[in-house]
Protein backbone atom coordinates (compact mmCIF):
# COMPACT_ATOMS: atom_id res chain seq x y z
CA UNK A 1 0.00 0.00 0.00
CA UNK A 2 1.35 3.36 -0.90
CA UNK A 3 2.02 5.93 1.80
CA UNK A 4 -0.61 8.21 0.31
CA UNK A 5 -3.74 6.14 0.01
CA UNK A 6 -6.11 8.07 -2.24
CA UNK A 7 -9.36 9.17 -0.66
CA UNK A 8 -12.37 9.07 -2.96
CA UNK A 9 -15.66 10.79 -2.27
CA UNK A 10 -18.54 8.35 -2.43
CA UNK A 11 -22.28 8.69 -2.31
CA UNK A 12 -24.89 5.93 -2.13
CA UNK A 13 -26.75 5.24 -5.35
CA UNK A 14 -30.49 5.33 -4.99
CA UNK A 15 -31.62 4.44 -8.48
CA UNK A 16 -30.08 1.34 -9.97
CA UNK A 17 -30.03 -0.15 -13.44
CA UNK A 18 -28.17 0.38 -16.69
CA UNK A 19 -30.20 3.43 -17.69
CA UNK A 20 -29.41 5.35 -14.51
CA UNK A 21 -25.80 4.16 -14.56
CA UNK A 22 -25.47 5.57 -18.08
CA UNK A 23 -26.86 8.92 -16.92
CA UNK A 24 -24.32 8.95 -14.07
CA UNK A 25 -21.46 8.36 -16.48
CA UNK A 26 -22.52 11.21 -18.73
CA UNK A 27 -22.48 13.51 -15.68
CA UNK A 28 -18.89 12.57 -14.83
CA UNK A 29 -19.66 9.98 -12.16
CA UNK A 30 -18.68 6.34 -12.00
CA UNK A 31 -21.02 3.63 -10.67
CA UNK A 32 -19.43 1.24 -8.20
CA UNK A 33 -20.37 -1.46 -5.73
CA UNK A 34 -18.99 -1.97 -2.23
CA UNK A 35 -19.18 -5.37 -0.59
CA UNK A 36 -17.43 -7.75 1.80
CA UNK A 37 -16.99 -8.58 5.48
CA UNK A 38 -20.47 -10.03 5.80
CA UNK A 39 -22.34 -6.79 5.24
CA UNK A 40 -24.88 -6.18 2.51
CA UNK A 41 -23.53 -4.94 -0.83
CA UNK A 42 -23.97 -1.22 -1.35
CA UNK A 43 -24.26 0.55 -4.69
CA UNK A 44 -22.29 3.78 -4.67
CA UNK A 45 -21.17 6.58 -6.96
CA UNK A 46 -17.61 7.82 -7.32
CA UNK A 47 -16.10 10.75 -9.15
CA UNK A 48 -14.85 9.36 -12.46
CA UNK A 49 -11.87 11.64 -12.91
CA UNK A 50 -10.32 11.15 -9.47
CA UNK A 51 -11.02 7.40 -9.49
CA UNK A 52 -9.44 6.79 -12.89
CA UNK A 53 -6.46 8.99 -11.97
CA UNK A 54 -5.91 6.96 -8.80
CA UNK A 55 -6.21 3.66 -10.66
CA UNK A 56 -3.75 4.79 -13.32
CA UNK A 57 -1.15 5.53 -10.66
CA UNK A 58 -1.43 1.90 -9.53
CA UNK A 59 -3.61 2.33 -6.44
CA UNK A 60 -5.09 -0.95 -5.23
CA UNK A 61 -6.34 0.28 -1.88
CA UNK A 62 -8.55 3.35 -1.56
CA UNK A 63 -10.29 5.12 1.28
CA UNK A 64 -13.91 5.94 0.68
CA UNK A 65 -15.21 9.10 2.31
CA UNK A 66 -18.93 8.42 2.47
CA UNK A 67 -21.48 11.22 2.44
CA UNK A 68 -22.49 10.57 6.05
CA UNK A 69 -18.93 11.20 7.25
CA UNK A 70 -17.82 7.59 7.70
CA UNK A 71 -14.75 6.17 5.94
CA UNK A 72 -14.08 2.71 4.58
CA UNK A 73 -10.82 1.09 3.49
CA UNK A 74 -11.40 -0.84 0.28
CA UNK A 75 -9.52 -2.98 -2.17
CA UNK A 76 -10.19 -2.51 -5.87
CA UNK A 77 -11.40 -5.98 -6.73
CA UNK A 78 -12.52 -5.69 -10.33
CA UNK A 79 -13.02 -3.21 -13.14
CA UNK A 80 -15.48 -3.27 -16.00
CA UNK A 81 -14.49 -1.72 -19.29
CA UNK A 82 -16.53 -0.11 -22.05
CA UNK A 83 -17.05 -1.41 -25.56
CA UNK A 84 -13.63 -0.30 -26.80
CA UNK A 85 -12.03 -2.22 -23.97
CA UNK A 86 -10.16 0.56 -22.18
CA UNK A 87 -12.50 3.06 -20.49
CA UNK A 88 -13.57 2.12 -16.96
CA UNK A 89 -17.37 1.96 -16.61
CA UNK A 90 -17.77 0.22 -13.23
CA UNK A 91 -15.65 -0.53 -10.16
CA UNK A 92 -15.97 -3.38 -7.66
CA UNK A 93 -14.66 -2.49 -4.19
CA UNK A 94 -14.22 -4.92 -1.32
CA UNK A 95 -14.01 -3.93 2.34
CA UNK A 96 -10.68 -5.06 3.78
CA UNK A 97 -8.60 -4.92 6.93
CA UNK A 98 -5.05 -3.72 6.52
CA UNK A 99 -3.68 -7.00 7.95
CA UNK A 100 -5.75 -9.22 5.66
CA UNK A 101 -3.79 -11.33 3.17
CA UNK A 102 -5.03 -10.81 -0.38
CA UNK A 103 -3.98 -11.72 -3.92
CA UNK A 104 -3.56 -8.79 -6.29
CA UNK A 105 -2.00 -8.05 -9.65
CA UNK A 106 0.68 -5.38 -9.50
CA UNK A 107 2.19 -3.84 -12.59
CA UNK A 108 5.89 -4.16 -13.26
CA UNK A 109 8.23 -1.27 -13.94
CA UNK A 110 11.21 -2.45 -15.98
CA UNK A 111 14.46 -0.57 -15.60
CA UNK A 112 17.66 -1.04 -17.57
CA UNK A 113 18.52 -3.21 -20.56
CA UNK A 114 20.10 -6.67 -20.43
CA UNK A 115 23.47 -7.10 -22.15
CA UNK A 116 22.05 -9.52 -24.70
CA UNK A 117 19.42 -6.98 -25.80
CA UNK A 118 22.11 -4.53 -26.95
CA UNK A 119 23.08 -6.67 -29.96
CA UNK A 120 21.73 -5.66 -33.39
CA UNK A 121 18.41 -7.30 -34.16
CA UNK A 122 17.77 -8.19 -30.53
CA UNK A 123 14.42 -7.12 -29.11
CA UNK A 124 13.54 -7.06 -25.43
CA UNK A 125 10.01 -8.33 -24.79
CA UNK A 126 8.09 -8.96 -21.58
CA UNK A 127 5.79 -11.97 -21.39
CA UNK A 128 4.53 -10.72 -18.03
CA UNK A 129 3.75 -7.05 -17.50
CA UNK A 130 1.95 -7.50 -14.19
CA UNK A 131 2.73 -9.86 -11.36
CA UNK A 132 0.16 -11.62 -9.23
CA UNK A 133 1.30 -11.46 -5.61
CA UNK A 134 0.00 -12.53 -2.23
CA UNK A 135 0.56 -10.13 0.63
CA UNK A 136 -1.04 -8.12 3.40
CA UNK A 137 -3.16 -5.22 2.27
CA UNK A 138 -0.83 -2.71 3.94
CA UNK A 139 2.13 -4.12 1.95
CA UNK A 140 0.62 -3.90 -1.55
CA UNK A 141 3.05 -1.86 -3.68
CA UNK A 142 1.85 0.50 -6.42
CA UNK A 143 4.34 -1.07 -8.80
CA UNK A 144 7.23 -3.51 -8.66
CA UNK A 145 10.54 -2.31 -10.02
CA UNK A 146 12.50 -4.91 -11.98
CA UNK A 147 16.11 -4.01 -12.73
CA UNK A 148 17.25 -5.80 -15.88
CA UNK A 149 20.60 -4.00 -16.05
CA UNK A 150 22.74 -6.82 -14.72
CA UNK A 151 20.95 -9.68 -16.47
CA UNK A 152 23.11 -11.70 -18.85
CA UNK A 153 20.73 -14.54 -19.73
CA UNK A 154 18.24 -14.22 -22.58
CA UNK A 155 15.30 -15.22 -20.40
CA UNK A 156 14.68 -13.87 -16.89
CA UNK A 157 11.88 -15.69 -15.10
CA UNK A 158 9.57 -14.85 -12.22
CA UNK A 159 11.26 -17.55 -10.12
CA UNK A 160 14.65 -15.82 -10.48
CA UNK A 161 13.30 -12.43 -9.41
CA UNK A 162 13.53 -11.62 -5.70
CA UNK A 163 10.50 -9.86 -4.29
CA UNK A 164 10.52 -7.60 -1.24
CA UNK A 165 9.81 -9.08 2.18
CA UNK A 166 6.18 -9.88 2.79
CA UNK A 167 5.38 -10.39 -0.89
CA UNK A 168 4.91 -13.82 -2.43
CA UNK A 169 4.57 -14.38 -6.17
CA UNK A 170 1.53 -16.38 -7.28
CA UNK A 171 2.33 -16.12 -11.00
CA UNK A 172 3.91 -19.20 -12.58
CA UNK A 173 7.63 -19.12 -11.61
CA UNK A 174 8.59 -20.19 -15.15
CA UNK A 175 6.87 -17.18 -16.75
CA UNK A 176 9.41 -14.87 -18.41
CA UNK A 177 9.69 -11.37 -16.99
CA UNK A 178 11.98 -10.46 -19.85
CA UNK A 179 12.95 -12.30 -22.98
CA UNK A 180 15.49 -11.26 -25.56
CA UNK A 181 14.39 -12.30 -29.04
CA UNK A 182 16.56 -11.93 -32.12
CA UNK A 183 14.50 -10.81 -35.09
CA UNK A 184 15.78 -12.35 -38.32
CA UNK A 185 16.20 -10.02 -41.28
CA UNK A 186 13.32 -10.46 -43.66
CA UNK A 187 14.26 -11.72 -47.11
CA UNK A 188 13.13 -9.47 -49.96
CA UNK A 189 9.71 -10.41 -51.26
CA UNK A 190 9.15 -12.95 -48.53
CA UNK A 191 5.49 -13.62 -47.98
CA UNK A 192 4.58 -10.90 -50.41
CA UNK A 193 3.52 -13.12 -53.29
CA UNK A 194 0.80 -15.59 -52.39
CA UNK A 195 1.35 -19.03 -53.80
CA UNK A 196 -1.05 -19.42 -56.68
CA UNK A 197 -3.57 -22.19 -56.27
CA UNK A 198 -2.66 -22.84 -52.64
CA UNK A 199 -5.68 -24.26 -50.86
CA UNK A 200 -6.18 -25.61 -47.37
CA UNK A 201 -6.91 -29.26 -46.78
CA UNK A 202 -10.68 -29.88 -46.67
CA UNK A 203 -11.51 -32.37 -43.94
CA UNK A 204 -14.98 -33.26 -45.24
CA UNK A 205 -13.96 -33.52 -48.91
CA UNK A 206 -15.38 -36.63 -50.60
CA UNK A 207 -12.61 -39.01 -51.55
CA UNK A 208 -12.87 -41.02 -54.78
CA UNK A 209 -12.08 -44.69 -55.05
CA UNK A 210 -8.37 -44.13 -55.72
CA UNK A 211 -8.12 -42.29 -52.44
CA UNK A 212 -7.50 -38.82 -53.87
CA UNK A 213 -8.97 -35.74 -52.19
CA UNK A 214 -12.17 -34.29 -53.56
CA UNK A 215 -10.28 -31.68 -55.58
CA UNK A 216 -10.56 -33.64 -58.84
CA UNK A 217 -14.37 -33.87 -58.98
CA UNK A 218 -14.61 -30.19 -58.03
CA UNK A 219 -12.28 -29.27 -60.88
CA UNK A 220 -14.37 -31.42 -63.23
CA UNK A 221 -17.55 -29.66 -62.17
CA UNK A 222 -15.89 -26.31 -62.80
CA UNK A 223 -14.86 -27.36 -66.31
CA UNK A 224 -18.38 -28.60 -67.03
CA UNK A 225 -20.00 -25.31 -66.04
CA UNK A 226 -18.79 -23.17 -68.99
CA UNK A 227 -19.86 -25.88 -71.42
CA UNK A 228 -23.37 -25.74 -69.93
CA UNK A 229 -23.43 -21.97 -70.31
CA UNK A 230 -22.32 -22.21 -73.92
CA UNK A 231 -25.26 -24.52 -74.59
CA UNK A 232 -27.65 -22.01 -72.99
CA UNK A 233 -26.22 -19.11 -75.04
Amino acid at each position, binding site marked *: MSKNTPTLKAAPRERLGSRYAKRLRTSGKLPAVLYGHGTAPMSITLDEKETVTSLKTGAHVVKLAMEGGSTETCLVKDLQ*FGWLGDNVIHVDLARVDLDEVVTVKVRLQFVGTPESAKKPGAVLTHDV*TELEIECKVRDIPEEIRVDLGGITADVYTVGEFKLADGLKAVTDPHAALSRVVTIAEEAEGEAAAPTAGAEP*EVLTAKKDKEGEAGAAPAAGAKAAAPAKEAKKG
Partner: protein
Amino acid sequence: MSMMPKRVKFRKQQRGKMKGNATRGNYVSYGDYGLQSLETHWLSARQIDAGRIAAQHFLRRQGKLFIRVFPDKPISKKPLETRMGTGKADVDFWAARIKPGTVLFEIAGVPEELAKQAFARIAHKMPVKCRFVGRRIAV
Protein backbone atom coordinates in the same frame (compact mmCIF):
# COMPACT_ATOMS: atom_id res chain seq x y z
CA MET B 1 2.79 -16.94 -48.51
CA SER B 2 -0.41 -15.16 -47.63
CA MET B 3 -2.21 -16.20 -44.47
CA MET B 4 -4.90 -18.88 -44.67
CA PRO B 5 -5.87 -21.90 -42.57
CA LYS B 6 -3.95 -25.15 -43.05
CA ARG B 7 -7.09 -27.25 -42.99
CA VAL B 8 -10.79 -26.45 -42.98
CA LYS B 9 -13.90 -28.50 -42.43
CA PHE B 10 -15.73 -27.03 -45.41
CA ARG B 11 -14.36 -25.44 -48.57
CA LYS B 12 -16.86 -22.53 -48.69
CA GLN B 13 -18.86 -20.56 -46.13
CA GLN B 14 -21.98 -18.43 -46.09
CA ARG B 15 -21.45 -14.73 -45.62
CA GLY B 16 -22.88 -14.35 -42.11
CA LYS B 17 -23.55 -11.10 -40.29
CA MET B 18 -21.19 -8.72 -38.57
CA LYS B 19 -23.23 -6.76 -36.09
CA GLY B 20 -22.24 -5.40 -32.72
CA ASN B 21 -18.85 -4.68 -31.24
CA ALA B 22 -15.92 -6.91 -30.47
CA THR B 23 -16.19 -8.53 -27.05
CA ARG B 24 -13.07 -10.66 -27.44
CA GLY B 25 -9.65 -9.55 -28.62
CA ASN B 26 -10.59 -5.95 -27.85
CA TYR B 27 -7.63 -5.00 -25.67
CA VAL B 28 -3.84 -5.11 -25.85
CA SER B 29 -2.64 -8.49 -24.56
CA TYR B 30 0.80 -9.32 -25.90
CA GLY B 31 2.60 -6.10 -26.75
CA ASP B 32 2.82 -2.66 -25.19
CA TYR B 33 0.73 -0.80 -27.77
CA GLY B 34 -1.93 -1.79 -30.24
CA LEU B 35 -3.91 -0.69 -33.27
CA GLN B 36 -7.64 -1.00 -32.74
CA SER B 37 -10.31 -1.06 -35.42
CA LEU B 38 -13.29 1.28 -35.07
CA GLU B 39 -15.35 -0.20 -37.91
CA THR B 40 -16.69 -3.48 -39.16
CA HIS B 41 -15.08 -5.10 -42.19
CA TRP B 42 -13.74 -8.23 -43.80
CA LEU B 43 -9.98 -7.77 -43.62
CA SER B 44 -8.33 -9.76 -46.39
CA ALA B 45 -5.10 -11.71 -46.00
CA ARG B 46 -3.45 -9.33 -48.47
CA GLN B 47 -4.39 -6.29 -46.37
CA ILE B 48 -3.07 -7.91 -43.19
CA ASP B 49 0.15 -8.76 -45.02
CA ALA B 50 0.43 -5.22 -46.38
CA GLY B 51 0.16 -3.88 -42.84
CA ARG B 52 2.78 -6.31 -41.58
CA ILE B 53 5.23 -5.38 -44.33
CA ALA B 54 4.66 -1.63 -43.80
CA ALA B 55 5.41 -1.97 -40.09
CA GLN B 56 8.39 -4.27 -40.47
CA HIS B 57 10.03 -2.04 -43.09
CA PHE B 58 9.60 0.94 -40.78
CA LEU B 59 10.67 -0.76 -37.56
CA ARG B 60 13.74 -2.40 -39.14
CA ARG B 61 14.07 -5.26 -36.60
CA GLN B 62 13.59 -2.90 -33.65
CA GLY B 63 10.42 -4.26 -32.10
CA LYS B 64 8.27 -7.35 -32.07
CA LEU B 65 5.07 -7.18 -34.09
CA PHE B 66 2.05 -9.28 -33.18
CA ILE B 67 -0.78 -9.88 -35.65
CA ARG B 68 -3.96 -10.39 -33.61
CA VAL B 69 -6.31 -11.33 -36.44
CA PHE B 70 -6.28 -14.34 -38.75
CA PRO B 71 -8.10 -14.68 -42.08
CA ASP B 72 -10.08 -17.88 -41.56
CA LYS B 73 -13.18 -17.03 -43.60
CA PRO B 74 -13.22 -18.04 -47.29
CA ILE B 75 -14.84 -15.40 -49.49
CA SER B 76 -16.07 -16.65 -52.87
CA LYS B 77 -16.55 -14.48 -55.95
CA LYS B 78 -17.95 -15.23 -59.36
CA PRO B 79 -15.76 -14.34 -62.35
CA LEU B 80 -16.70 -11.34 -64.49
CA GLU B 81 -19.29 -11.77 -67.23
CA THR B 82 -20.52 -15.03 -65.80
CA ARG B 83 -24.20 -15.92 -65.83
CA MET B 84 -25.89 -16.39 -62.50
CA GLY B 85 -26.48 -19.87 -61.17
CA THR B 86 -24.41 -23.06 -61.50
CA GLY B 87 -23.64 -23.11 -57.81
CA LYS B 88 -21.45 -21.16 -55.44
CA ALA B 89 -18.34 -19.58 -56.92
CA ASP B 90 -14.75 -20.47 -56.13
CA VAL B 91 -12.92 -18.99 -53.16
CA ASP B 92 -11.40 -15.65 -54.14
CA PHE B 93 -9.63 -14.69 -50.91
CA TRP B 94 -9.49 -15.34 -47.19
CA ALA B 95 -10.67 -12.73 -44.72
CA ALA B 96 -10.75 -11.98 -41.00
CA ARG B 97 -13.98 -10.62 -39.54
CA ILE B 98 -13.27 -7.26 -37.93
CA LYS B 99 -15.65 -5.56 -35.54
CA PRO B 100 -15.34 -2.18 -33.79
CA GLY B 101 -12.90 -2.73 -30.95
CA THR B 102 -10.88 -5.55 -32.49
CA VAL B 103 -7.15 -5.12 -31.89
CA LEU B 104 -5.47 -5.77 -35.25
CA PHE B 105 -1.76 -5.41 -34.48
CA GLU B 106 0.40 -5.04 -31.39
CA ILE B 107 3.99 -3.93 -30.95
CA ALA B 108 6.38 -4.71 -28.09
CA GLY B 109 9.86 -3.48 -27.29
CA VAL B 110 9.77 -0.01 -28.84
CA PRO B 111 9.14 3.49 -27.45
CA GLU B 112 5.62 4.90 -27.72
CA GLU B 113 6.52 7.47 -30.38
CA LEU B 114 8.03 4.83 -32.67
CA ALA B 115 5.04 2.55 -32.16
CA LYS B 116 2.69 5.42 -33.08
CA GLN B 117 4.59 6.05 -36.31
CA ALA B 118 4.59 2.35 -37.20
CA PHE B 119 0.85 2.06 -36.55
CA ALA B 120 0.20 5.17 -38.66
CA ARG B 121 1.82 3.34 -41.56
CA ILE B 122 -0.25 0.22 -40.92
CA ALA B 123 -3.45 2.27 -40.58
CA HIS B 124 -2.91 3.65 -44.10
CA LYS B 125 -3.08 0.10 -45.43
CA MET B 126 -6.23 -0.81 -43.49
CA PRO B 127 -9.74 -0.50 -44.96
CA VAL B 128 -11.10 0.64 -41.58
CA LYS B 129 -10.69 3.60 -39.26
CA CYS B 130 -8.20 2.71 -36.55
CA ARG B 131 -6.91 4.18 -33.31
CA PHE B 132 -3.78 3.79 -31.23
CA VAL B 133 -4.25 2.10 -27.85
CA GLY B 134 -2.04 1.20 -24.90
CA ARG B 135 -2.43 -1.40 -22.20
CA ARG B 136 -5.47 -1.00 -19.98
CA ILE B 137 -5.49 -0.60 -16.19
CA ALA B 138 -4.87 -3.85 -14.32
CA VAL B 139 -6.05 -4.67 -10.80
